[in-house]
């Protein structure tokens, strides 16, 4: 029993791999819905949690990043009960640092749950030195990814290529900015799978096989 993090280049099939591996092993798949669920269990109110991942990072401004300002990621509208008992509407502002801290806390909690597959979100950095975590990287040459993307989304090749390049850039920037790592560094991973050369079926088999060698965690009662 273990935890698997999957870092993927856009269009490499990493999302599908994560879903299929969690299904095969009976693990939970930490997607957006489960992130919110974990947050709720941590008593972070559902509305207050923002899943600030590399996939949302690309939405934000270049200028803000350039000047290093902590961006406002979300505005939370909430109804508070003030002292005298009157209802008051407040708007809270969550900035990058707060959002990242929340994501980290959710991932740590998911790790403690065990038997979970974590896709992206800096999992390879947050859980870097844990002995019972398998860090997987999925990549493929740009051409192969563009082919896969345009087939899946019925978009043209040029559009798919732009999307892949932009998305990879955003992921790289997200990991560099918040964790100081180069996401392409092969030494960050235990297993790197090239889906330009290997099928997803094989990739699922390989990850399933690799995870068997991880140490079993002592159950704390």
């Amino acid at each position: 029993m273990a935890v698997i993090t999957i870092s993927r280049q856009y269009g490499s099939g990493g999302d599908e791999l994560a879903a299929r591996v969690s299904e095969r092993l009976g693990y939970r798949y930490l997607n957006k819905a489960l992130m919110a669920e974990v947050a709720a269990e941590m008593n972070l109110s559902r509305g207050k949690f923002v899943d600030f991942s590399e996939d949302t990072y690309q939405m934000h401004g270049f200028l803000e990043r350039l000047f290093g300002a902590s961006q406002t990621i979300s505005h939370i509208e909430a109804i508070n009960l003030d002292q005298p008992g009157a209802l008051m509407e407040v708007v809270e502002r969550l900035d990058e640092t707060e959002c990242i801290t929340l994501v980290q806390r959710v991932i740590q909690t998911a790790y403690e749950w065990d038997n979970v597959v974590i896709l992206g979100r800096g999992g390879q950095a947050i859980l870097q030195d844990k002995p019972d975590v398998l860090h997987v990287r999925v990549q493929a040459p740009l051409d192969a990814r563009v082919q896969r993307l345009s087939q899946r989304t019925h978009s043209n090749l040029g559009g798919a290529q732009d999307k892949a390049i932009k998305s990879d850039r955003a992921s790289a920037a997200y990991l560099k900015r918040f964790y100081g790592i180069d996401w392409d560094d092969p030494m960050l991973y235990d297993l790197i799978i090239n889906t330009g050369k290997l099928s997803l079926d094989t990739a699922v088999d390989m990850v399933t096989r690799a995870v068997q060698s991880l140490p079993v965690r002592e159950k704390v009662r």
Partner: protein
Amino acid sequence: MGIITISRQFGSGGDEIARQICRQLGYGLFDKRLLVRTAKELGISTGELIDYSVDDYRTRHLLERLIVGWRSPFALSDADALADFVNDLRPDTARLDQEQYTTLIQLAIQTAMEQDNFIIVGRGGQAFLKDIPGVLHVRVVAQFPDRVRRVQQRTRLEEAAAQDMVTTRDKASAEYLRRIYNIDWADPHHYHLVLNTSLLSINTAAQVVITALHQLPTPNPGP
């Protein structure tokens, strides 16, 4: 029928993984004996054959390396070029230079490809057999301290000496691949998979490679 190339950081356990797969699948290990056999067939006496394998590359003097001219490695199908090369090799040939050595490796690999399931560790296999159907390219890495520890266990060297050895060997391998094949050996794109033995055991790593092997097509018969 299958061929596996294993490129490994020094001390990462790549050789052990290769041996385990050979035991388990009955594959042959491409090694110096195969080179000697091929050299003999070409009429080169074994005394002249120095294994300028990737590991020994550092022994070459810098000047010597610089004056060896560039020649592209033969394409697998380039039978005429191979024949010319064989004709040029006479029994009185002095020590093979590194370029000739590389060609000899390539010839031996081709000979092996006609008959065997085998694994080739190092020697530029990932570059020479690039994009050949039925060939699985594997890279084995591990964190530096783990590799130093492994080398120390094997050689009884002091820590500093082992560190030195690991650094020197890796640098030599990277240089060889850069010069002969113009590739960055650390780039994961050259491989089907990369395994890190800091976390994965030798046994698990071997099983993952075997899992990947299952999907490979049967290679085309040699030229």
